[in-house]
């Protein structure tokens, strides 16, 4: 895959690095008990979120999983709003009602943050249905892990999207483990593209550790979807370097396996490519790191200084504030 023009090439590195450094900070803040609940880190998979977002425009929609910090950052939700959410502050993107697993931002058409495996797929189908019925040529991207393909909602949604030829781009992040269960231990057919193809959905695998390959595949898929060709399924082969959550002792995989995958670290590999192409030198890399560190420190300070919602507001947002309409 050839490199894009220098500005864009550097931006891809910057976006991946932001996610990596942001989540390293999250892990640190979790250890310091500033962040609680579940925290699922995306480290190792950054090329997928960053690459896919390159194919989207402002009007497109995104439905993501509970491992969605990377998608949220790559979509343009500020590190401040995301970190404040993890701190449970009203300044958080979900006012502290959602936490790490439920990041929402309607202004960026970011529809979560869904913590039920497979539960986001029907919603993505519905968003796409609305676009179709309203005559809008928008794409809805739906991220989910390979664990979701065992859920009925995956199969129901693939069928419905294909049957109605809806503009959904299904992005399966195959990191090989559904929590601790390896794909081969849960699926009789481990080729995920075959499952999608059985619904007459064009499907192909992509190297999820190569941001350029991801961006290229997503661009081609989004073009087809936007053009009215119905849904497309992409399987991104990737790996999570960290534990499933902060409670996971990783008994189900070997250190060797993790180390082997780290040899294919998407940020390291892509950084080396930029250096080889003469687009990045040591000083520039250091400047980039400094800039990102500054952004993250600022986000942490913002979250730290954020406010707690008054307990009197506890029951807000159960129903809309608008008074009931009496005809």
């Amino acid at each position, binding site marked *: 895959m050839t490199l894009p023009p220098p500005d864009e090439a550097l931006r891809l590195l910057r976006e991946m690095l932001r996610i990596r450094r942001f989540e390293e900070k999250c892990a640190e803040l979790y250890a310091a008990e500033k962040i609680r609940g579940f925290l699922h880190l995306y480290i190792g998979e950054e090329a997928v979120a960053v690459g896919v977002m390159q194919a989207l425009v402002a009007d497109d*929609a995104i439905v993501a999983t509970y491992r969605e910090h990377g998608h949220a950052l790559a979509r343009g939700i500020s590190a401040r709003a995301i970190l404040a959410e993890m701190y449970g502050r009203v300044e*958080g*993107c*979900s*006012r*502290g*009602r*959602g936490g790490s697993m*439920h990041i*929402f*931002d*309607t202004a960026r058409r970011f*529809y*979560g*943050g*869904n913590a*039920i495996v497979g*539960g986001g*797929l*029907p*919603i*993505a*189908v*519905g*968003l*796409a*249905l*609305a*676009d179709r*019925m*309203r005559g809008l040529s928008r794409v*809805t991207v739906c991220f989910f892990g390979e664990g979701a393909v065992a859920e*009925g*909602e995956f199969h*129901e*949604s693939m*069928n*419905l999207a294909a*049957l109605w030829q809806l503009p959904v781009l299904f992005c399966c992040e195959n990191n090989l483990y559904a929590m601790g269960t390896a794909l081969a231990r849960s699926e009789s057919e481990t080729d995920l593209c075959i499952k999608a193809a059985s619904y007459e959905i064009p499907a192909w695998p992509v190297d999820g550790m190569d941001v350029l390959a991801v961006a290229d595949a997503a661009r081609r898929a989004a073009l087809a979807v936007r053009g009215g060709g119905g849904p497309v399924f992409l399987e991104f082969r990737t790996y999570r370097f960290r534990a499933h959550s902060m409670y996971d002792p990783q008994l189900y995989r070997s250190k060797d396996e993790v180390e082997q995958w780290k040899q294919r670290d998407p940020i390291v590999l892509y950084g080396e490519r930029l250096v080889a192409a003469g687009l990045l030198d040591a000083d520039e890399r250091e400047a980039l790191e400094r800039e990102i560190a500054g952004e993250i420190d600022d986000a942490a300070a913002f979250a730290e200084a954020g406010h707690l919602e008054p307990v009197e507001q506890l029951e*807000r*947002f*159960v*129903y*809309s*504030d*608008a008074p*009931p*309409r*009496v*005809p």
Partner: protein
Amino acid sequence: MSEPQRSDAPARIRQSYRDALREAHRDALRRDERVFLMGEDVGRYGGCFAVSRGLLDEFGPERIRDTPLSESAFVGAGIGAALGGMRPIVEIMTVNFSLLALDQIVNNAATLLHMSGGQLAVPLVIRMTTGAGRQLAAQHSHSLEGWYAHIPGIKVLAPATLEDARGMLWTALEDPDPVLIFEHGSLYGVEGELAADAGAVPIDRAAVRRAGRDVSLFAYGGTLGKALAAADALATEGVEAEVIDLRTLRPLDTATILASVTRTHRAVVVDEGWRSGSLAAEVIARIVEGAFYELDAPPARVCSAEVPMPYAKHLEDAALPQAPRIVDAVRRLLGGGA
């Protein structure tokens, strides 16, 4: 009894509950191009209870949308379409089938507004058939609306009258939040008179269907008719029962419930759900919390027997609340014995 029709009285038409529902759909589909109906067999088949018969011809397959047997996907698609600017009506054949979509209803429709800090309202209406009485046995007959009424974030309606069958849908569609409408299967064929210009009705309050001073009977949906029949029978014994139609099961109209008990000082709750953990239990809890010192007798309830609904007619009849059982419960309350 019959008075000469006054010339300025609004015209009345004879209609079934099913027809009233269909008119409500037709009206909504005409009024708002964002409204569409989707579900199993709503189009070519005409709806499994014929509610949507004829709508496909009038509004076309985009707006009267047949779905595969994928409750979770099409309910979830309804949520997504609502988020995407449409006003979907999703029909689920029976409440038992809705269990296949519980993830979408409980984990998504009910939570998205809250989890998103107020950003994602879900203006979705889900209709389904509920209840027994048609010998459909234990997978088509249950009354689980009380379960749904447990869930914050959704509203739960139970139209028992023609006016409500005609009028609740539009108000529900205007609501910014998800609304579940439970239609009792025994009501579709019930006919009656309805104002020709009947329209939207409020969905935030209970209604007094019969005034009385001796006892309050609380009912909804399929049990309203039985409560009214019991009240007729009691009237022949000189007992004046007030019959309250709860109409909206969540949020409950506690004020109307307590006001009635304050008038009558006795309460019987009729609920086709099972007794344990039932909506009837919630109504009685509210009465005890809010009007304990008004009571002249312990509140009573007439619920379904705690068995999966049997097929054989005599067993099904015995399992369900019936007017004679309601009458007996009132007599016991009044000290007359059974």
